């Protein structure tokens, strides 16, 4: 009975190389997935995006919605033995808002964080912020003040210490990150494996091969064809779910699109009718994506299921074009970023093909993504450009603001006073139902006067070895491995 228990190791492939293991500095989703295994925030969003207590056992919100009082869990220690308390929260926030921290704007949603007593903190915002708790859950990783100060930001990013289910063991840059079970984790009985090893594998074909050979237990970001093929492989299970990302072809009415036919809503509706999006989904994504009806995903607050997606109806498109005064179509510029999203160049090509069938000739320019976003921010892209937007906060407000905020938003090329007005109202309304109603109104408006050609909400494909249990990724492609076990 006293034999040494075998060390259970979970091996996870990540498609990019973490730049830092500090969740506040980790540049993108995959790096964050690695680092968040080490941390906790005050609150936690569960699989249904419901906010649950984490390092805070409970909290109160003031009447005006601008002040939160968190009551912290007692007896929690950081991995290095430092105690977790109000000072740690204040320290973490003060560090988080410094401009050199990648996600400082997320920390800065709070105007102040004050220690009330050892296990109580008060957090206030300038305006009522309906998204605050969600943001906290996703970005506020609690760090130990003494250790963090001692090793500095670089040192912390290289060897982080948190309160999370796993603790840091080693990071061989570009090769592996090794984490170990935190035996005194406050969530009783978790985590379920002894060790987690993250291996960066940038090439999806290689990730696919690695799961087949059993060198890896969990891989993500596969193409649907790869998922298809893996479904036929014993010992490998495919995991698929819609992600929180909307793809669209945007119009421009600020700069390059001025005086173009696309200023006319009928033309824009026509273009939505002209594209056989289901065919695109079927052929490029194996049918595994949802038609989008707006800039909201079905899991977002205020999503109106009664809004039907535009059907594929080229005749109707031609009619509308004729009505708008373009019976023979027109020519217009079109751009898409290169290599940024799965199959997106091909989607753009497909859209180009469909538009051509109703007479709209586009000059498709696939631009290297860095440059594409430069141009997008400078609003210098052609009047038609393809892009996507992901939002993890569970609501579509930031995405809507970002993509439709006119001159104020870096990646917007569209301005519509009706939309602006609705968005302004949503962003100060704390009451969920009221907000939902406003979202629905916006949703319908954007169907009549579409600022985009709506494309799809893709599913993502991941695969796990068959002996992996309870690997539950979320719509934002994030996951917590503390629940995951190996048979």
């Amino acid at each position, binding site marked *: 009975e006293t034999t040494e228990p075998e060390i259970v190791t979970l091996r996870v492939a990540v498609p990019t190389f973490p730049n830092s293991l500090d969740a506040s500095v980790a540049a993108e989703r995959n790096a964050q997935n690695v680092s968040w295994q080490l941390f906790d925030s005050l609150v936690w969003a569960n699989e249904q995006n419901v906010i649950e207590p984490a390092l805070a056992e409970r909290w109160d919100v003031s009447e005006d919605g601008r002040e939160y009082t968190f009551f912290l869990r007692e007896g929690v220690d950081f991995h290095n033995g430092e105690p977790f308390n109000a000072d740690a929260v204040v320290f973490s926030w003060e560090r988080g808002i410094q401009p050199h921290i990648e996600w400082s704007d997320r920390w800065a949603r709070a105007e102040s964080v004050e220690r009330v007593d050892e296990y109580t903190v008060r957090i206030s915002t300038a305006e009522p912020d309906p998204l605050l708790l969600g943001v906290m859950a996703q970005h506020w990783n609690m760090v130990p003040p003494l250790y963090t100060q001692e090793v500095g930001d670089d040192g912390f990013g290289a060897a982080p210490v948190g309160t999370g289910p796993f603790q840091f063991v080693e990071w061989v840059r570009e090769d592996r990150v090794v984490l170990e079970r935190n035996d005194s984790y406050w969530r009783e009985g978790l985590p379920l494996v002894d060790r987690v090893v993250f291996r960066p594998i940038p090439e999806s074909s290689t990730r696919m091969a690695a799961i087949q050979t059993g060198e890896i237990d969990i891989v993500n970001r596969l193409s649907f064809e790869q998922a298809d093929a893996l479904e036929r492989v014993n010992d490998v299970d495919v995991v698929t779910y819609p992600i929180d990302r909307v793809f669209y072809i945007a119009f421009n009415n600020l700069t390059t699109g001025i005086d173009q036919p696309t200023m006319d809503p009928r033309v824009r509706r026509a273009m939505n009718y002209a594209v056989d999006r289901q065919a695109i989904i079927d052929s490029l994504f194996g049918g595994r994506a949802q038609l989008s009806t707006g800039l909201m995903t079905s899991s977002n607050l205020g999503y109106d299921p009664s809004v039907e997606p535009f059907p594929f109806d080229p005749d109707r498109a031609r009619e509308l074009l004729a009505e708008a005064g373009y019976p023979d179509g027109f020519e217009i510029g079109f751009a898409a970023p290169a290599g940024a999203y799965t199959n997106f160049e091909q989607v753009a090509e*497909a859209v180009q093909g469909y538009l051509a069938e109703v007479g709209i000739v586009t000059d498709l320019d696939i631009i290297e993504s860095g440059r594409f976003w430069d141009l997008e921010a400078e609003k210098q892209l052609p009047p038609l450009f393809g892009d996507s937007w992901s939002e993890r906060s569970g609501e579509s407000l930031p995405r809507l603001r970002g993509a439709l905020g006119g001159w104020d938003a870096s990646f917007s090329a569209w301005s519509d006073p009706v939309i602006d007005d609705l968005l302004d109202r949503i962003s100060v309304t704390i009451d969920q139902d009221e907000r939902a109603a406003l979202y629905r109104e916006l949703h319908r408006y954007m169907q009549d006067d579409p600022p985009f050609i709506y494309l799809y909400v893709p599913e993502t494909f991941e695969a796990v070895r068959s002996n992996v249990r309870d690997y539950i990724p979320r719509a934002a492609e994030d996951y917590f491995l503390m629940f995951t076990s190996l048979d």
Partner: protein
Amino acid sequence: MRIDALDRQDLRRAPQRLARIVLRDKAGLFGLILFVLIVFLALAAPALSPHDPLQQNLRSSRQPPAWHEAGSMEHPLGTDNLGRDMLSRILVGTRVSLTVGFFGVLIASSIGLVFGMTAGYMGGRTDSAIMAVTNLVLSVPYLLLVVVVASVLGRSLLNVILIFGFTNAPLFVRVTRGEVLRIRTSGYVESAISIGASRHHIITRHILPNLIGPILTVATFEMSGMIFYEAGLGFLGLSVPPSIPSWGNMLAAGRQYIQFSPWIATFPGLAIVVTSLSMNLLGDWLRDVLDPRQRRSS
């Protein structure tokens, strides 16, 4: 061996000799035929293509080639992930590849010729300066250079041509300079000086014609290299825009299907291999035929 012994082998008429060299080197002949065929395919691509290479049909995407059970003669080499006809795309891709190779080499060799001749003929400080820059460019890893430049310029056919043209120029500078130095001290240039030839005459009548052989040989190899590297740029998403059916793009797009729809990556891969093979063989052969030094000892 003294000169006369060598001569006798050369006494036969040149055309026959040329024919013999062509026939002797079976591989070279094969390369030549292949190359002519490829050029023909490139020129005739629009006429030969059964379909519009850009015509997509998402409903019939990833059809296997005709000899497959599920394939049809409609698409002899199958279709790609957007249902475009592979055969037509490969054919048109030939054009793209040869365009990239041809104009890339044209630019590179023009630059190389101008600077290499200047360096070789002027000597002294001009030579040192040109060679310093050449060596500088050559000491940065080629692909790093290409990747940086490609991402600066963005994707377009012209840009790919320019990138290959400029990044390959140093090689031509070196070759040209070396040849000019050799030719400049050759007996026939001295002989030309002794009959009162002007510099201009020497350059146009003696140096340039004798440069053609080595440059052409290098050009053939470089052209094959460019076709090869275009595929590499395609892999990194830095080649011509995806709407242009280049082999690199096709190969890059097909790589995720390599296990289940292998033809999408295999055919462009084969096209690259066959084309660069033909050019390599041709290059070997040209080196034999065009290099008078080789001719003497062959």
